[in-house]
């Protein structure tokens, strides 16, 4: 299938989500369920990755800044901006593309193959609205929050590593953090988070929803969904940086 066929089918799937819910309460329940499953379920891995990435950033930046003319607090500035601009939104979302993307693709794929989606359709339920929309919406709500948490934990990890490895004091780190801070960077990171959240949820939902065949195809769809999402995240990352920075 050509790229444009996929794009057309993807857009039709998105269009199909916008209908009046059969029962608002049930849709709300499903949205909350997805927020817990996809958002809170990924909090652990995001926390671990962020703390370590922050810590490694501090150590490696210190390793490269050998000039005695550059104040140590610059390390904190570099760590802060790297984490806010790139690590927290992009790296976290690449990881989330694997965690959430494979979950969405395999869940929907399994529902398609085992005729659960057909069963819902027969009942008169719009499956795009009931199954796909809450997942995309949950990601749009939870992923920016996870990215903000990743920023905070990443910077905290860097600060902790700075003191633990005797690179710079907490006071010097905090001074560096506050100097030259641009709120726009956080805004830019949030824009990236929303864009990536849509990719992370929409692409796997498309692959999973349209699975045809059996268990093997579910695995293939899951892999394709993650690979495509990662490529699209990197592409979007570059485009957003080129346009907004």
């Amino acid at each position: 299938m050509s790229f444009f066929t996929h794009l057309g089918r993807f857009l039709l799937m998105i269009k199909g989500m916008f209908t009046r819910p059969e029962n608002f309460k049930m849709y709300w329940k499903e949205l909350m369920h997805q927020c817990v499953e996809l958002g809170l379920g990924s909090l652990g891995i995001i926390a671990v990755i962020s703390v370590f990435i922050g810590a490694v950033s501090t150590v490696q930046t210190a390793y490269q800044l050998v000039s005695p003319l550059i104040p140590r607090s610059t390390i904190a500035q570099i760590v802060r901006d790297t984490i806010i601009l790139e690590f927290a939104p992009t790296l976290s979302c690449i990881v989330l593309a694997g965690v959430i993307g494979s979950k969405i693709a395999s869940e929907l794929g399994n529902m398609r193959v085992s005729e659960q989606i057909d069963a819902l359709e027969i009942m008169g339920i719009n499956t795009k609205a009931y199954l796909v929309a809450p997942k995309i919406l949950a990601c749009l709500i939870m992923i920016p929050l996870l990215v903000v948490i990743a920023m905070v934990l990443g910077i905290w990890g860097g600060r902790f590593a700075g003191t633990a490895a005797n690179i710079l004091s907490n006071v010097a780190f905090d001074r560096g953090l506050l100097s030259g801070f641009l709120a726009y960077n956080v805004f830019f990171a949030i824009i990236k988070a929303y864009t990536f959240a849509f990719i992370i949820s929409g692409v796997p939902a498309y692959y999973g929803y349209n699975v045809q065949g059996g268990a093997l195809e579910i695995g293939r769809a899951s892999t394709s969904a993650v690979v495509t999402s990662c490529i699209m995240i990197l592409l979007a990352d570059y485009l957003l940086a080129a346009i907004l920075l």
Partner: protein
Amino acid sequence: MIELKNLKKSFGENVVINDVSAVMDTGKCNLIIGSSGSGKTVLMKCIVGLFTPDSGDVVYDEEEFKHMSPDDKKMMRQKIGMLFQGSALFDSMTVEQNIFFPLDMFTNSTKAEKQKRVDEVLEKVKLKDAHKKFPAEISGGMKKRVGIARAIVLNPKYLFCDEPNSGLDPQTSLVIDKLIKEITEEYNITTVINTHDMNSVMEIGDKIIYMYKGDKEWEGSNKEIIFSKNEKLNSFIFASEFLQDAKDMRMLEMKGKIDNDRNMDELLK
């Protein structure tokens, strides 16, 4: 009553349903039979609206499905219950939650009223004790019964069963057949069953439609099928010697040559 009017469905060059017309009667078990690849599943999916026919129409009690608005189609679907070949139970939900689901989605009843209805249908399919189990924890036959319970919980006017006996032992198949027949008669619903189980054909086939390579090859009842001279039908239905013998016995019985108890001891003397 469901009326099929000149239904046609193709996938690319492959014509799967070729100009099929038929009437499915209310309060009866209408069976669609045929070998694998004969188009019976596609026909059923066209009837329930999962596939859109290339031409022709399906008429539900004088309402043409093709000309219904999307909202009317949604309303119509709430009158349809379907049992899928693999049961299609939601595996993240317990048996009880699976049956609750359509009630939660489409009714404004109180929790107590819903619980009463769920208990009623669970009683009907004799699964009262399994209500807290997950689909992965129950047998294939039980899954089918849960599927039936979920399909009838909203009191549908039309019940569709796609190969209800596939993967079941003969005894469990009989239980499922009896249950479907009982529900059809008790609630006076139009039941359409896709099957190639010969027991079902002979036991509950009030009306039988035989599909052959996308065409409707034969139509009749389980009483008429015994005397059918259609070669394709006979070679499909009575494929083994054992089944041919069984057919001969049934013919003799129906013609009164042997009595209903078959008096086998006497005949074998």
